[in-house]
């Protein structure tokens, strides 16, 4: 099963070792006899697609979840990790993403959160300054977290972790909120931390490029068990991809899903690869003549509840049949745009027009009526009602279609739902099952099915593949392409460069709430995009 390529020379015991760790949730085996050895002085990559068991494994290490079988060893000695505090005491530190900072609190309060004992403000502030200086992570201890940028927040997370003097740092998908430049900085800090102080780092990622660039040792998880482990220098992306998925992977859509595109591949290479898979080419209008844009967003300004500008004279057009990717680092206004197009908020100024007709944004539901379908970023929040059935979720945006003046027409609704379930391959015991019981991928299919069933002119897909496994991702890509081929204008909001490369015919970069450049896919190199994302002109 595995390809153990560790040195034959006996070394000191690993800083952290897992042997045969198994964790089940009911019938689902999340981790299956996992062996993992992390040595000091190394950055160890943990690679696997979504659902492979990486998160569960880390939760075991952090005391959030108890393992069913197996042992955890620290420097060769068995340890137990019943609580998060125990994990900290054992020298295990997690740098979380945007899940563990409390916004109204200050940096120092956040840093000292979760510790026992009295609140020692001055001590903590001093420590923050010291740690910040040592690792090149300057941050003001008295700033409020809600005022910080994403990169600064990550600094707070890192400082919070480092301050407890961990032997092993665990970073979970750290670069999703960072620009390329910030990612580089992060990896330098990690190298520093690891080399100078002989700590260890576990870097969890599903991006091959990142693993190749930043790690010394890599372990690949597939469906809960270890599929492969080796020194990073001795392997290549294709091999890793194959191990991750369990079969040969083409550079096309699957490659994109796996983050296989490196910064060096040119768009031509990607497009050529994409064309390997049938029905893959993004649609273009046959005659090449300019048509009325399906979606026109002009000068939209949205302010947050505290006055901050979230969208700053945002302007964009999407033509029928094209897939326009809106690319940028998280936190630059994408969520706001998604909410706007979902009809969840009104702009302070600006207009949105569909097929040339301005949509009255102050009327609830007007965008949907005008033909804008949305697959939202957070489907639990605004896309579905978890406690309603699959049937209900499939018909909820277009009740008029399945009802008379007052009463719903049950039969019609069930017919429609059955058709959609089959068409979109939604796997569910019955259409009356509560949506809560479906897997993430299937819930996403329900949303897509419903929005497309409304025959929209525009489909907005915000991070549509977040949290899905490769199979579901491929399916989503195929459907997006199919929709574009039918003439729907697809606006793909994404933070994954690979997705942009694989799907889009044009890419717009969003930075600080405005569009910082629109490129044809042929002109879009990773470099140019990187600069635009960082706020500079390219």
């Amino acid at each position, binding site marked *: 099963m595995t390809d153990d390529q560790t040195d034959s020379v006996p070394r000191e015991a690993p800083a952290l070792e897992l042997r045969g760790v198994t964790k089940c949730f009911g019938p689902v085996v999340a981790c299956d006899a996992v062996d993992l050895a992390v040595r000091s002085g190394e950055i160890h990559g943990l690679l696997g697609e979504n659902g492979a068991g990486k998160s569960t494994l880390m939760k075991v290490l952090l005391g959030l979840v108890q393992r069913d079988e197996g042992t955890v060893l620290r420097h060769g000695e068995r340890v137990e990790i019943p609580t998060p505090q125990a994990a900290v005491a054992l020298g295990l530190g997690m740098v979380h993403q945007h899940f*563990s900072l409390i916004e109204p609190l200050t940096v120092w309060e956040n840093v000292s959160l979760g510790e026992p004992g009295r*609140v020692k403000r001055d001590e903590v502030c001093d420590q923050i300054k010291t740690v910040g200086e040592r690792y090149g992570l300057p941050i003001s201890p008295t700033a409020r977290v809600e005022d910080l940028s994403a990169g600064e927040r990550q600094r707070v997370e890192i400082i919070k972790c480092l301050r407890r003097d961990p032997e092993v740092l665990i970073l979970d998908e750290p670069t999703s909120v960072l620009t390329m430049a910030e990612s580089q900085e992060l990896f330098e800090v990690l190298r520093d931390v690891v080399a100078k102080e002989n700590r260890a780092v576990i870097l969890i990622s599903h991006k091959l490029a990142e693993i190749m660039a930043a790690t010394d040792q890599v372990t690949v998880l597939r469906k809960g068990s270890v599929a492969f482990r080796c020194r990073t220098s001795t392997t290549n992306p294709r091999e890793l991809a194959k191990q991750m998925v369990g079969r040969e992977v083409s550079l096309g859509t699957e490659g994109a899903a796996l983050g296989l595109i490196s910064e060096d591949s040119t768009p031509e290479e990607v497009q050529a690869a994409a064309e390997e898979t049938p029905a893959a080419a993004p649609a273009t209008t046959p005659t090449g003549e300019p048509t009325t844009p399906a979606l026109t967003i002009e000068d939209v300004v949205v302010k947050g509840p505290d006055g901050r500008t979230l969208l700053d004279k945002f302007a964009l057009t999407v033509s029928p049949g094209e897939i326009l990717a809106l690319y940028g680092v998280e936190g630059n206004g994408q969520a706001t745009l998604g909410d706007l197009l979902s009809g969840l908020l009104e702009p302070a100024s600006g207009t949105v027009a569909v097929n040339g007709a301005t949509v009255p944004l102050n009327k609830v539901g007007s965008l949907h009526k005008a033909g804008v379908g949305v697959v939202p970023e957070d489907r639990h*929040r605004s896309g579905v009602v978890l406690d309603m059935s699959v049937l209900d979720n499939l018909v909820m945006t277009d009740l008029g279609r399945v009802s008379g003046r007052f009463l719903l027409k049950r039969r019609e609704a069930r017919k429609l739902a059955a058709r959609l379930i089959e068409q979109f391959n939604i796997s569910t015991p019955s259409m009356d099952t509560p949506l809560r019981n479906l897997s993430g991928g299937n819930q996403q299919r329900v949303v897509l099915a419903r929005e497309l069933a409304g025959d929209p002119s525009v489909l907005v897909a915000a991070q549509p593949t977040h949290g899905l496994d490769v199979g579901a991702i491929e399916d989503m890509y195929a459907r997006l392409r199919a929709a574009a081929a039918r003439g729907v204008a697809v606006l793909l909001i994404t933070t994954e460069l690979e997705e942009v490369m694989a799907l889009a015919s044009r890419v717009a970069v969003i930075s600080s709430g405005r569009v910082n450049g629109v490129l044809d896919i042929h002109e879009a190199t990773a470099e140019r995009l990187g600069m635009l994302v960082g706020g500079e002109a390219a």
Partner: protein
Amino acid sequence: MIGTEEITTIVASSLRLTAPLAFAACGEYLAERAGTQNISVEGMMLGGAFGSVAVASTTGSATTGLLAGAIVGLVVGFIHGNLSHRVQINTFVVGLVLNALVLGLTSFLIAVSEFDSNQVAQVNIPGLADIPIIGPLFSQRWPMYLLLLLIPLTWWLVERSRWGLNLRAIADNPQAADVTGLKVNKLRRQALLYCGLLSGLGGAYLATAEVGSFNMNMTAGRGFIVIAAVIFGAWRLKGTLIGCLVFGFADALRLALPALGFELNSQLLVAAPYLMALLAMMLFASSNREPRALGKPFVRGIT
């Protein structure tokens, strides 16, 4: 004719009527800063009132009664905490049912019992007590001075202590706090215990320091006024207490005006504090400072 004597009386009366509110308000303030909203404050106060009178009568000591009242409030808080933040029943439903249960129980028990009247001792600070207008501040039943200690204690607990930091964290973002290792629901239950303790104390004060006995439903909606006060105070202790003072003052006026010769409609006077609370909420209810996770249940892993 309103002379200093009348004003002094009104001030004294205001303070006395504010005190039960203030006790409970400190409790509910902390609870809401922790992200829990409990309409069972009414039940906590009523239970506290009854408990204090019952125990004071049986033991002969009003002070013991006071303590007992606080404990009854604590028990109500314990039940609410476990039903809402362990068993995960909607907190409004729990509050409603607890209020009904406490009302029913106390009404039932008072109908079958005979209690002696017991009041806690009054403490006068000589000299100061005679100053006009503010004199009454120094001539109060002793639990009032306890209140004056509880106020800064509550503030310190919320803003400066480790516990308060944790409470404020779970009030804003329970998921994040959970990941950091804080036990969200346990902290919420603890906050409810504090709320129960102080609200029970407030009710006990009403019964043993103010009135001296228990009447059916004697809290008459004060628990809800307290909640309105927290909202009015924009979730800051100072504002909350000012709110309590305003409502206490309105209550005092209601009692004083007829004596002063103003013939105002009695229903209007009774309605005045409630009306004022409504107006206060309309004018001052700003959601900016409202704890983000206020009233929302927390279950790990399900967003």
